């Protein structure tokens, strides 16, 4: 468990994710480097025009898994590290923020690496599902990454 982690799920019907909150959380007088990843809803996927995305999450599992990923990342790139994750749930339109990951540390290298490791874990290992809504009226769940046979170690690089 990392004491310098904030992880939250933001219901789009209630609020929008604010990247500034992530930057504020990982800021520290001793930190010279902050890396922020902002994931947004894109207007095209595999040749199909996208109108929006609905996110479904198993929230308690997502939050406990992020705790474990953060502890692992702190062991690899810390110990001085602050981490922030916010993921949207519900329906988002093109251009809206789906996820923010921020990492702060004394120097930039650890911040870049921790941020990258955390967003990859969120995308490939967390119980989150996206359903794409297309301009033609059709909707489809993304194919995604299977959690079968995933070992408790850093995820390999993926193409998405």
């Amino acid at each position, binding site marked *: 468990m990392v004491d310098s982690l904030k992880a939250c799920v933001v219901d789009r019907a209630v609020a929008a994710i604010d990247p500034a909150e992530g930057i504020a959380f990982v800021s520290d007088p001793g930190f010279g480097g902050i890396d922020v990843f902002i994931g947004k809803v894109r207007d095209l996927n595999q040749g199909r025009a996208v109108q929006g995305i609905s996110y*479904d999450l*198993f929230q308690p*599992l997502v939050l406990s898994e992020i705790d474990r990923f953060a502890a692992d990342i702190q062991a690899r790139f810390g110990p001085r590290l602050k981490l922030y994750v916010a993921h949207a749930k519900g329906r988002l339109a093109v251009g809206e923020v789906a996820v923010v990951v921020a990492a702060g540390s004394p120097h930039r290298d650890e911040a870049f690496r921790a941020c990258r490791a955390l967003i990859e874990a969120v995308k490939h290992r967390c119980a989150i*599902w996206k359903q794409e809504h297309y301009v033609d009226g059709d909707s489809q*769940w993304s*194919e995604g990454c299977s*959690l*079968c046979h995933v070992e408790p170690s850093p995820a390999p690089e993926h193409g998405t």
Partner: protein
Amino acid sequence: MRTVTLQLFGAFSELDTTAGAAAGPEGRAGIQINVEGDTVADLRQALRVLLPARWPAFAAGLLDYSAFADSQRILRDPEPLPEDGRVAILPPVSGG
């Protein structure tokens, strides 16, 4: 024989659960399923029989790529089913 309440996520949330529905926390759709045995593998086997029988239009092959979990962690096939009988089915994930 035991009864498992299966919480449905992602593509599985599209299953029509109007018959024998078991709403979970937050009103999430679920199904009740009788399982012969005590392990996650036994639940998987029960679903392998139930899905094509009750929802013939559903692409039941998704089951082979899906994992199971309680609210804290992933449960592997050889592991025992949770005491409270509440299990989530996790199709391949696509966050971010």
